[in-house]
Every structure is written in C-alpha cells, then in structure tokens.
C-alpha cells in the first residue's frame, strides 16, 4: 500500500532477476543485510524455521535457497533493526498518524514499550509492563460472562506462542480461539468432511511430482505461495496439464523464471505454467465446476466404448452419485454460462484436455 506510488504494468515473467534485486532492497531497507542473509539460509530448512509468510510446507529435499521474495520480506520484518520508542509517540498524535501511509508506519520499526492511548492528549503513552499486565488482567476479570471474550490471533504465529496463548484462553475460561486462518480455511473444514470425509486437503508435496493433472481455482501462487512455482515448473516440464480458473490474470500462473536456475537466469527463458487459463467471473467458480462435472458426465455417456468415469471406483467409494448426475442434468448450460462468465465450450475443453488424466 504505497498510496500515491506509481502502479506500472509488468510484462515479464514472475521470478527472475527482479525477485533477486528486490531481495537485496528488502534486507538493506530493514537494516538487516548481514543478519537477514544468515537467517534466510535456514528458512524452511529441516533444522531451520518455518517461514511466517505462507503455508507452503518445508520440503524434505530443500533447494539451496528455500525462500521467496515475500518470505524474505516477512523474515526481514520479523528481525527488523528499526525501533519505534516512546519518543516517537510523544511527537505525533493518533489523529496525525491516521493520515500516514501504512508503509511509512511500518518503517518506523518495532515497538519497544507497552503503550496506552491517552484521550486527553490523543497520544500513546508508555506504561510499565507490570502495569500493562495488571490493567489487562483487571479488565478481563471484570467481564462477567467469560464465554463472551474472544482470543484472536494470527495463524502465522509460532507454535510456541500459539500454545501459550491457547493455555491463557483456557485458564481464563473458554476456548474461543479463532485466528486469521479461519478466514480462509473454515470453508474447507465445513465442506470437505461432507464430500471426502476429512477436513483438510489430502495431497502431499510428493504428489506434485507424480500427478497427471493440476487444476487451480482461486489460487495465486505468484503472490501467495511463490515457492509452489518450483513444483509447478517441474510439472509443466513433465507435460502435465495445468488448468487455471481465476478472474485475475496472475503472472505466476503464466510464466516463471526460476531465480535459482543456472540456465534460465542468463537466458531469460521462462517456463510456461498454465496450459489453459480461464477468467471465470468473481464468485462464478461453483457454476464453472458444475459445468465441468456436467461436461464430464455427458462425455462419459457419449463414449460407450471407453469409459471416461471410473465406474468401479464410484460404486465402491462414493454414495449418492446417481442423485448428483440427475442434478447435473437439471442444470442448464445457459444459466451456467451466465453465472461462470465462461462459454460452454471452455468448460468442455477443460474436460477434453484432461480426459487422459481422468482415465488413468
């Protein structure tokens, strides 16, 4: 959020020299060029620490640099050298700070003291830790209904901090412990048990090396989990169809230059990632998936000789398939096209393109 900063269109692939240059800028801006570089060699390694930037796992066999531009930024912020002492707040009122850009506020550095807002002066005043704890404790004790209190935290806190925070909430009298991950994953936790019986994804990192097909819905690996681009690059080089459904064109899903490749970096030769890229309308993914299922069932019906669907698997491991197929028959292509913002031919092409993967 750089406010009035220029927003320039970017035509290159993701990764490449741009991400290497950016890395040096980030570390020197946070004043941690030496300590940051050292920390980064341990990032996402087996004996090192898990990056707090994204949820992409620590692989068993790591690359020399198992971090990305975003992860380096997160680590540089964690160990930031800049400090924001009480003297800073003596100079600025809260009303004035509200007009500052988020980027400039972040740049002031890490807080050194507990602070309390003073309405009379509209400033944050430093208090002793002991006073801060005593006051927070007093406020919490005064609340009659202990179940009405929520202990919110970030899903990217360390395990140790999260464990202590959980103990704190239970000592207090409830287990209201939502975190930022709920915002993303609660839909998974509710819908997956209804469909496959477990509340989380069942794919492991190794599966990316063996899969016959990858489909993307609403995931922007270049922005949200850049280290995944390595797995996608390898899959693309193996000829695996990668199909992306995403309203926004995301460069990471289109082209990638591996910043750690000795051949790609000098040549500037990028790897094509997505074989098909369909710009579904915002919130149109359900309609698009329904269309894909409908096309798949229709294709199976039309090709009597070679079954497209694995009917033995469906009979043994699923229930309610006939009802699902009947429901698909009641969905009209006109309505699905309107809601997905995509042509019927697009959804059918996805099925045709991936058919070899379905049938093996």
């Amino acid at each position, binding site marked *: 959020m750089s406010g009035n900063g220029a927003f320039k269109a970017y035509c290159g692939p993701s990764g490449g020299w741009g991400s290497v240059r950016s890395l040096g800028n980030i570390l020197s801006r946070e004043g941690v060029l030496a300590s940051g570089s050292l920390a980064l060699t341990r990032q996402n390694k087996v004996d090192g620490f898990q990056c707090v930037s994204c949820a992409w796992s620590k692989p068993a066999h790591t690359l020399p640099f198992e971090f990305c531009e975003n992860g380096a930024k997160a680590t540089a912020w964690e160990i930031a050298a800049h400090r924001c002492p009480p003297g800073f707040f003596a100079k600025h009122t809260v009303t004035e700070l509200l007009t500052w850009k988020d980027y400039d506020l972040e740049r002031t550095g890490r807080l050194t003291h507990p602070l309390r807002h003073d309405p009379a002066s509209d400033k944050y005043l430093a208090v002793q830790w002991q006073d801060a704890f005593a006051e927070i404790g007093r406020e919490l004790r005064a609340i009659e209904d202990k179940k009405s209190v929520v202990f919110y935290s970030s899903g990217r806190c360390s395990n140790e901090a999260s464990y202590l925070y959980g103990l704190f909430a239970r000592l207090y009298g409830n287990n209201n412990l939502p975190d930022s991950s709920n915002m993303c994953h609660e839909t998974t936790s509710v819908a997956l048990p209804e469909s496959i019986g477990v509340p989380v994804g069942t794919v492991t990192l190794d599966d990316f090396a063996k899969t016959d097909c990858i489909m993307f819905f609403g995931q922007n690996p270049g922005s949200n989990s850049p280290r995944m681009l390595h797995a996608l690059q390898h899959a693309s080089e193996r000829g695996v169809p990668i199909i992306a459904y995403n309203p*926004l*064109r995301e460069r990471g899903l289109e082209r990638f230059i591996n910043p750690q490749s000795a051949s790609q970096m000098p040549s500037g030769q990028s790897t094509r990632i997505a074989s098909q890229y369909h*710009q579904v309308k915002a919130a149109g993914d359900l309609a698009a998936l329904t269309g894909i299922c409908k096309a798949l069932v229709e294709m199976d019906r039309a090709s009597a000789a070679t079954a497209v669907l694995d009917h033995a698997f469906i009979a043994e491991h699923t229930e309610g398939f006939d009802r699902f197929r009947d429901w698909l028959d009641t969905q009209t292509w006109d309505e699905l096209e309107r809601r997905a913002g995509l042509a019927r031919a697009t959804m059918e092409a996805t099925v045709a393109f991936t058919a070899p993967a379905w049938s093996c």
Partner: protein
Amino acid sequence: MVVLMNRDDVDRLRLKAGDEVTLRTSSNDGICREMPGFCVTPYDIPTGCIATYYPEANALLPLGHYAEGSKTPAAKSIPVVVERTSVSPGSSN
C-alpha cells in the same frame, strides 16, 4: 489504493485510468458502507468484476454477508456502486 477494472468497464463508466473513485456497497439494510480513495487501474479481469486488495476494502463487507455453514465472510462477492470523486491529473475529461 487501487481498484482493478476491465478496460471496457472503465470506458463504459466514462472513467479514466488514474481517476479516484468511491466504492459503496449495494445493500438493503439501510447501512451505508463506503470507502473513498481508490485509483482506477485498468486490468485483465472479466467485465462486471472489479478487485481491490485486502484489507483496504474491508469496510465494504456487511457483517451478515457470509457463507452458509462455515460463516466465512463472503469477501469475494460484494456488489458495489462505483462513483468518481476526482478526475486524474493529466486527464482532459
């Protein structure tokens, strides 16, 4: 703050790249939810859809607008009205 918008929508709404717009949630509960200060930025996105970054547009999300079952805020599907508040410097329009 930027709002990503299809080039055809930018033209249809007689906007120009760099114009500043206010986004207002279209709802029928009588509460006005709006956020000013978004810079119009043409982008490759389907017509009729716009995108902004978190958390800049949080103010537009009605509390009662969530997924059935999981109660996850339906932040990816908020109908809004786009209103121009100031013309981009360097624009003749």
